[in-house]
């Protein structure tokens, strides 16, 4: 990546990866609590289980993802159920979501919507994008570039230390 001299707008960021057309499809592998912080980690893996992308999210966001993974239906619509309900009523299709960027340990995502035949992109936190994708059966992608820049070398060792015990609690 070249050094940027000015903030990159969302549309520029979106264009960047659309041009590069190097998206990798990911599955949500699990959500597990981070024992060191009050947060949760969403584990995304590619289909060959070769690459792994952990994204730290808040407890509420982690729960929203876990509920969808478990297919748990709450008695009242949760926030992302409401979002899906908007899409259903207004005939908006969530075509896919993309983890588009990572800067200062913050991941960025884009939700691709199709409404009346035209595709539009909405800036989102990855947690919202994933929670919505799981509720609309939409594919989740990450750019090659983000995958390359993620985590660093210690990641695998770190994940191993967390233990497969926690990970296995929420299998897909």
């Amino acid at each position: 990546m070249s050094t940027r001299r000015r903030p990159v707008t969302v549309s520029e960021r979106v264009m960047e990866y659309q041009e590069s057309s190097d998206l990798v499809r990911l599955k949500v592998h699990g959500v597990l609590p981070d024992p060191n912080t009050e947060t949760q980690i969403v584990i995304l893996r590619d289909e060959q289980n070769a690459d792994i992308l952990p994204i730290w999210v808040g407890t509420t966001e982690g729960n929203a993802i876990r509920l969808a993974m478990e297919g748990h239906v709450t008695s009242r619509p949760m926030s992302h159920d409401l979002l899906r309900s908007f899409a259903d009523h207004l005939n908006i299709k969530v075509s896919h979501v993309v983890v588009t960027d990572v800067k200062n340990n913050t991941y960025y995502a884009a939700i691709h919507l199709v409404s009346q035949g035209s595709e539009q992109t909405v800036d989102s936190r990855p947690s919202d994008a994933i929670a919505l994708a799981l509720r609309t059966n939409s594919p989740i992608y990450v750019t090659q570039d983000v995958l390359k820049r993620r985590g660093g070398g210690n990641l695998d060792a770190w994940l191993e230390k967390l233990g497969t015990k926690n990970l296995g609690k929420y299998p897909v």
Partner: protein
Amino acid sequence: MLQMKVRGLMFDPYNNAYIVILRDEDNADMLPIWVGKSEASAISFALEGIAAPRPMTHDLMKSVLDTVDAKVISVVVNDLKDNTYYAKIHLSHKDSEYAIDSRPSDAIALALRTSTPIFAQDEVIRKQVSDDLDHWLENLKPEDFGKYET
């Protein structure tokens, strides 16, 4: 139907939850709605006009609706059953109107972000047991009341 304003947000130490206080314009009627921590924070961000560095879930809802030119017309707290409040979000989109089932917390968090009026059905206000409520409120210390009291 009465138009309501969000008058306060406070912590309920007995239930470890938050209470959104809705009042009608004459301050004659009041509707307290218990919500969870993250719902309370979604409402307080909007009340305080704090823009988060990244879009929060209700900011995303607004931006999805904006993207397709859908407008939030109003939100209505329309029922109370077994201590659970129900709400509808009324949307207009391409000459059609939609009423979408929601928890009041989501409806209020979205209404505050879209400058949309919040209403409560008369029946809901009648149904809530105000005697119990007054008694309960008397037991709260003044400092429990949120700083959002307007």
